[in-house]
């Protein structure tokens, strides 16, 4: 996939896509619905195993980057807010409770089998389990998308990489067809457009942070957006999203329109937007620091000094 940043005339090029697929000349087999319960249990177990691995990898990556960033600048703020990780952990716990419930349903099903009414119980339980497995698959995919988005932000080393990550996540994961990224000029206290998708960047003027309106209100809050927060919006935006690093506004994303096939935000989108709000600002700041950092080889004495050894 190509990502064009700030490209005039980009409107209409975006993937205004229906999600349909075509299928030509291929073999289709029956899906086979028999004996669902054991397979559902196995699938659920595997799901939680994968979820745990994702969360652990995310935590490990955060720890690594925290150390890396502090190694570059002593006064660097805490680079990785814990709230996204906490949200993921809470979600894993919630799903574990649901797994316990699903296992109870399985136990009831088994009990029915012992009493000779196995077929009735199975018939009653299977559609529910199948539906639940499908929901868990969606959850699983969503957790994976959260993990991938977080990893991409924290592994981006340059501003173009950060911009590409923002663009790809908004376009391909959230389904935003047009947006503008405004970055804060701290000296002038002005927001300027650095990248735009689905429109002409030249049409974007600067915005003074002292101006009233949605952006000013957002700046006053000075914290990442999370689900349940007001969705700052005005006539030109379906939502403004603050990109924050350590309670300091770094940039603002103006989400202007959805892709044609995207009807609106769902719960998973809100989680991703929250992830972007918390991590993209850190990624921008980190890339900025990297651009001004002097490359120094790792040296034992210096490293030991940093850790107080």
């Amino acid at each position: 996939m190509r990502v064009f940043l700030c490209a005039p005339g980009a409107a209409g090029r975006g993937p205004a896509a229906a999600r349909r697929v075509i299928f030509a000349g291929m073999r289709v087999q029956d899906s086979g619905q028999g004996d669902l319960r054991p397979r559902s249990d196995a699938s659920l177990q595997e799901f939680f195993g994968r979820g745990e691995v994702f969360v652990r990898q995310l935590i490990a990556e955060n720890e690594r980057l925290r150390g890396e960033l502090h190694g570059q600048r002593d006064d660097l703020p805490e680079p990785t807010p814990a709230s996204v990780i906490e949200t993921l952990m809470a979600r894993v716990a919630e799903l574990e409770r649901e797994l316990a419930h699903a296992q109870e349903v399985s136990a009831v099903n088994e009990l029915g089998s012992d009493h000779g009414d196995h077929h009735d119980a199975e018939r009653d339980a299977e559609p529910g389990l199948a539906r639940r497995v499908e929901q868990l698959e969606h959850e699983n995919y969503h957790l994976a998308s959260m993990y991938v988005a977080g990893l991409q932000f924290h592994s981006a080393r340059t501003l173009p990489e950060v911009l590409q990550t923002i663009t790809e996540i908004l376009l391909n994961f959230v389904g935003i067809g047009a947006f503008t990224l405004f970055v804060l000029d701290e000296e002038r206290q002005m927001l300027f457009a650095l990248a735009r998708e689905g429109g002409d960047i030249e049409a974007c003027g600067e915005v003074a942070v002292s101006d009233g309106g949605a952006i000013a209100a957002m700046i006053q809050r000075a914290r990442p957006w999370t689900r349940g927060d007001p969705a700052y919006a005005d006539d030109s935006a379906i939502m403004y999203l603050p990109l924050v690093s350590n309670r300091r506004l770094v940039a603002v994303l103006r989400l202007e329109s959805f892709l044609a096939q995207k009807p609106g935000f769902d719960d998973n989108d809100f989680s991703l937007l929250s992830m972007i709000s918390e991590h993209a600002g850190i990624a921008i700041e980190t890339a900025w620091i990297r651009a001004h950092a002097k490359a120094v080889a790792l040296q034992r004495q210096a490293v030991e000094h940093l850790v107080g050894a």
Partner: protein
Amino acid sequence: MTLDTTEPTRRLHALVVEDSPPMRKMIVFALSRIKGLAVAEADDGVDALRRLAGTKFDLIITDINMPILDGLKLVKRLRADEAYMHVPIIIITTEGAAEDRQRALALGANAYITKPIQAPQVIKLVRETLGIVDDGR
């Protein structure tokens, strides 16, 4: 004891060709849910050709817009290659790129998926393409 009849008689191999790391990771993750399917990745068309030379793949999923060697050229090359003449190819495209999509299908691609991708649809299409019975995952 229940006999597991969902395991394919041999392990199938799919290659995902996509230059966008997050997209590639998500497609690979979705395909990893298909039991019996081994998934490899390539950054672009040239990388794909290198990997295709070393392993016999049963399915290729490729983006169209890629640097160096794009998806259209890759499809053309594969359809001219005896080893991959009949191997299913699914292209990844955008709704706005209808012309590219038609060209890819005319060159011999079998099907397409559009961005933003939906994992269940990708899984379903790949299962149908490879004739893998839905194992409930």
